[in-house]
């Protein structure tokens, strides 16, 4: 029985050891710089063209400026229109009052 277990352990060890050795990374050469190797691996080795439209950068500052300009411009236009209506109405009221006074005098 002991001989059978020993044979199984030996057989299993012989089967597993080559696979483990194959998966493990190669042992670095003595004296090789680890950091230099990483930096080299990070360098681009290929350029790939974009498919479809180009990637864009939307200018946030310009959009912000445009939004605040829109607010002030619309308020200004509204006030200008109100002022126009105000002067037009005041003139008309004055004219109509004068006409009514004149018609009553007649």
């Amino acid at each position: 029985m002991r001989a059978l277990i020993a044979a199984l352990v030996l057989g299993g060890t012989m089967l597993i050891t080559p696979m483990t050795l194959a998966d493990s990374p190669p042992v670095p050469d003595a004296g090789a710089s680890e950091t230099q190797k990483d930096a080299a691996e990070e360098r681009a080795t290929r350029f790939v063209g974009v498919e479809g439209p180009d990637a864009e950068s939307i200018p946030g500052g310009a959009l912000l400026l445009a939004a605040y300009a829109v607010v002030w411009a619309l308020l200004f236009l509204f006030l200008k229109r109100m002022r126009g209506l105000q002067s037009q109405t005041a003139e008309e009221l004055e004219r109509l009052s004068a006409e009514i006074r004149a018609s009553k005098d007649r």
Partner: protein
Amino acid sequence: MSRTGQSGSATVWSLVLFATLALFAAALYTIFVVAPVEQQMGIVQKIFYFHVPSAYAMYIGFFVSAVGSAVYLLKRDPRWDAVAVAGAEVGTLFCLIVLLTGPLWARKAWGVWWTWDPRLTTTLLSGMIFAAYLALRSMGDAGEVEKRFAAGLALLGLVNLPLIHYSVQRWRGVHPTVITGKGGGLESEMYWALGLSFMAFTGLAVLLIWARASLERQRAESARLRLELMHQ
């Protein structure tokens, strides 16, 4: 209105005007100097401080218009009709501001100028209802029928206001829910900027509605005098 009443009204007007100007100055300082730049969107997020209060001022305008219209339908008092017209015009102005500043922000945040998000769609719908109101009222001197029909439109617009407000919570969309109950909130400096801006826009909406209603009453008086002259 009596001379004393006019003087008191002018004093209140001036006080509100100065308070509003001071609030705008404080809001702009807080927005651009105190409040931090948002982490993900960057500086474009600062549109938020004028965009959201504009939407709130739009609600004020449209609500005032609907209330003025309802009272006008009940009492037939032209002063309330003037209030309704003023509310509709000011509300439409702020609606236009919302619909123009929103896409400028959305272009950066969502990558599109416009999307049929529930809140955007319902806001556009409200703008169209009140634009129809103003178109109806701008066709010369409005008669009684036009005024009543326009008042009905304003009430229809009022029904849409809660839909705009709750659409962001009820339906799926892309609109941020930062300051709603489900939202994650803002930095304290951002809350200050938004709060000051809210107050400034409230003052501005009140001033504009007040001035426009006063002008509309003068226009109604002018129309009445014209009619009087015609019958003489």
